[in-house]
């Protein structure tokens, strides 16, 4: 089991540690609900160093990334980030990821920890472009600093003004350490992600500086539990829950990142077919006044018939209502449709709504 460079920090803070995709990760420090609210109202820090960082470098780096991913990488300029996905030839999703354009000949792909080895292997397999593919995941630490006060906190210890637009990044020193500062995150709040290399001492220096700078804002450490409820309030997909090799980007509501007009890429033909015929099912957001908790794998029913299943669910700490994502047969997927969560044999009324669940 791997540990991130913040492991001893988490232990000292008394975090509840779980095994998560091969890493010892903090799931919560105090309470998932309290940590969730800290991010929505002030600022929180997540250790997400388990994420994978893969560098693609070479004259034809752009061509390989274009071929591997569904979004149009040619639209990126240096210092910009793009949300994208890798698909199989049949349109099933290999992984969802972020593409960072470092330069014309270098990209950094940030992938899910659970998929990193699989992704890396697929990149290698499809490298007919003669570029270098380097897995730097073990070298990078990654902290997400998220919440309305995140900018004020980082700016105190950053050697340049944080004038970053959404999905942009730059290189800077934070707490005296060289890093990539990226205005991205998985919470829907104003937030930044800090990528840096170095040993445990460096990692702890960054962590401690952030908490010192954030004292005034009552900055909190936030675990994977709240990371999940925060992303779900926004309706962001989680690989393994809402998307996987059996789902395609069109039915998952990721048509907006699927650029079917760009030149050849893996999965293009299959995805064009889905788009033309219309997906048989759709990932929809649902909300319920019931207090029972919708969870991954529970069924959805309408007029006594099963019409789909839940892929992610929680009780929203902000709305105090049950919220869920799930796949529903397309004919029943319209906003406003009344549907039931099947929870331990009981039908709990819900309604198909629109995203995000929580509006900032």
């Amino acid at each position: 089991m791997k540990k991130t460079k913040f492991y001893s920090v988490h232990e000292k803070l008394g975090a509840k540690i779980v095994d998560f995709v091969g890493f010892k990760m903090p799931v919560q420090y105090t309470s998932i609900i309290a940590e969730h609210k800290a991010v929505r109202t002030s600022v929180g820090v997540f250790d997400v160093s388990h994420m994978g960082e893969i560098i693609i470098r070479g004259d034809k780096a752009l061509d390989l990334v274009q071929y591997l991913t569904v979004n149009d990488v040619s639209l990126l300029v240096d210092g910009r980030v793009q949300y994208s996905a890798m698909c199989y030839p049949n349109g099933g999703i290999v992984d969802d990821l972020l593409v960072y354009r470092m330069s014309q000949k270098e990209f950094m792909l940030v992938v899910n920890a659970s998929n990193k080895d699989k992704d890396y292997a697929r990149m290698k397999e499809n490298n007919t472009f003669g570029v270098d593919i380097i897995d730097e995941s073990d070298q990078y630490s990654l902290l997400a600093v998220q919440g309305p006060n995140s900018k004020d906190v980082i700016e105190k210890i950053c050697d340049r003004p944080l004038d970053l637009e959404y999905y942009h990044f730059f290189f800077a020193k934070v707490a005296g350490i060289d890093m990539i500062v990226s205005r991205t995150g998985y919470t829907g709040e104003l937030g930044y992600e800090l990528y840096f290399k170095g040993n445990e001492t460096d990692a702890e220096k960054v962590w401690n500086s952030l908490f010192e700078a954030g004292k005034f804002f009552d900055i909190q450490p936030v675990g994977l539990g709240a990371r999940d409820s925060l992303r779900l309030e926004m309706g962001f997909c989680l690989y393994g829950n809402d998307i996987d090799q059996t789902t395609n980007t069109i039915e998952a509501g990721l048509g907006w990142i699927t650029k079917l007009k760009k030149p050849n890429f893996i999965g293009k033909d299959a995805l064009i077919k889905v788009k033309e015929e219309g997906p048989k099912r759709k990932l929809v957001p649902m909300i319920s006044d019931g207090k029972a908790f919708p969870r991954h794998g529970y069924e959805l029913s309408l007029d006594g018939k099963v019409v789909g299943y839940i892929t992610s669910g929680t009780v929203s700490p902000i709305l105090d209502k049950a919220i869920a994502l799930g796949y529903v047969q397309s004919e029943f997927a319209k906003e406003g449709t009344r549907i039931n969560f099947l929870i331990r044999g009981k039908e709990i009324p819900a309604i198909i709504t629109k995203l995000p669940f929580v509006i900032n």
Partner: protein
Amino acid sequence: MNIPVNLKYTKDHEWIKIEGNVGTIGISDYAQSELGDIVYVDINPELTEILLNESFGTIEAVKTVSDLYAPVTGKVLELNKRLNDEPQLINTDPYGEGWIIKVELTDLSQLNYLLDSETYQAQLGG
């Protein structure tokens, strides 16, 4: 970990307080801490009886759902209605305001099979 000596426990982390032939039941401090934020206690409001070792409801925490097992057989006297709106009382006061159900015991000999605080503590330690 708080484990009051005046209560009896099950290996499934329920506690029961005996007063005459009335038992008040909840979950232990250890159980609430393992579950994390509790958001819903799901017990049929029409429930009239609980049966030894059988599930009489479920308790929903943010990360997981867990069955509630009856430490004894008994007739239901009262459900803690405050938990409908404040399920987090189980987190903040598991042995007090976070009690879950009160029953009238039908067979007091069942108490002999429950764990005392020391044995329960030892089980957690192991």
